[in-house]
């Protein structure tokens, strides 16, 4: 795409870049009101969106924006020695007069409007919602506008039960610390106990961790156990 076709949406102008140039040069829009920064941003956004840097079009853009910049800086910082189109004193006075009269006209109109406003704002208006009966369709005037199928479909949506959440990925966590606490508490209270009697209803993970905790306690000399028969009951007691 040529830089001149770049689409702009500025406060004072919307359209392609080359039209903006034409409009500025014909002084339809004062350059002082055009944000050149916004144009550069628009161009960069365009480059980013298309993802390609076409050297020719980039050069063209730089030339155009540079000329606008120069023009704008000259407007904003008028220099003493710049050559002006010389107006005769009569023409200059006439031009100045016309502009002054035009401004004066609207300044006077503004004073008139201010007077109207000062008077008008003494009147307060009611701002209340309409009574409920006027806010709904009347029964006589009501016509068939809704499809009952919509209600059936909504009901069907409400009957749909979401699938049971899949919990297989959630693992119960059993903490060794907690099992140690449980064992110590049991031994303090009872002195000795039958492992199966106490832990048979726990899940396998808990049983395994509890057994591990028991090994740990044995190592620390806190507890010991006896098992008279293979697969027989395990008696745990304080060591």
């Amino acid at each position, binding site marked *: 795409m040529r830089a001149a076709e770049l689409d702009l949406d500025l406060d004072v102008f919307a359209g392609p870049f080359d039209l903006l140039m034409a409009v500025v040069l014909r002084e339809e829009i004062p350059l002082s009101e055009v944000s050149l920064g916004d144009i550069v941003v628009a161009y960069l956004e365009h480059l980013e969106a298309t993802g390609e840097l076409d050297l020719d079009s980039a050069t063209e853009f730089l030339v155009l924006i540079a000329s606008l910049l120069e023009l704008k800086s000259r407007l904003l910082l008028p220099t003493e020695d710049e050559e002006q189109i010389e107006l005769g004193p009569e023409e200059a006075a006439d031009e100045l007069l016309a502009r002054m009269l035009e401004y004066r006209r609207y300044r006077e109109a503004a004073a008139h409007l201010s007077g109207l406003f000062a008077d008008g704002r003494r009147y*307060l*208006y*009611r*701002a*209340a*919602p*309409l*009574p*409920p*009966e*006027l*806010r*709904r*369709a*009347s*029964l006589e*005037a*009501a*016509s*068939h*506008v*809704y*499809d*009952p*199928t*919509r*209600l*059936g*479909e*909504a*009901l*069907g*949506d*409400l*009957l*749909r*039960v*979401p699938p049971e959440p899949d919990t297989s990925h959630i693992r119960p966590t059993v903490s060794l610390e907690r099992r140690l606490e449980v064992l110590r508490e049991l031994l303090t209270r009872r002195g000795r106990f039958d492992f199966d009697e106490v832990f048979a209803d726990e899940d396998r993970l808990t049983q395994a961790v509890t057994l591990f905790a028991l090994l740990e306690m044995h190592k620390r000399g806190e507890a010991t156990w006896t098992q008279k028969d293979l697969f027989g009951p395990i008696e745990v007691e304080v060591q």
Partner: protein
Amino acid sequence: MTVLERTVEALLFLSPQPVSTAELAQACDASEAEVDRALDALEGHLLEGSRGIVLRQVAGGYTLAADPVAEDAARRLLSTPRTPPLTQAQAETLAIVSYLQPVSRPEIARIRGVASESAVATLTERGLIEESGRSRFGAMVYRTTQLFEKLFGLSGLDQLPDPSRFDPTPEDERELRERLLKAGEQRAS
């Protein structure tokens, strides 16, 4: 009319809500007794049948209202039948009320799995559903209106489409209400 009577009339005219004697007295910098006398005088001026505006005493104070004589004309001038497309929340709420009526607001919320105050309020305001007493637990219960039937082109509630047409689990034979509640609770959990 005295300045106080005129001021009271203007205040009632401007206020969208009823205004109490105390509020009027404070705003007018007058005593409540003076305001009461002004209201009496105003009532005489706005006697029903004499003007287009009437003075009403309602809960919370006094308010001005349009005389009922203008109701038809007001409808022609101002009523814009509010029948915009239903949102999903409104359609669900209306489906629950139309199939299960009478149904309480807590039940609607349980079935939908979310609070439904705003949908209920909008449907009530548009005249599609209305309050029809209270359940034995004291909750307000709702039913559909004649306007509902007209807007949906139904000659009666038995004309509602057969729910089994839209049933995703037709093998479940429990009562519709029970199944909706169960599905809602599962959704909410």
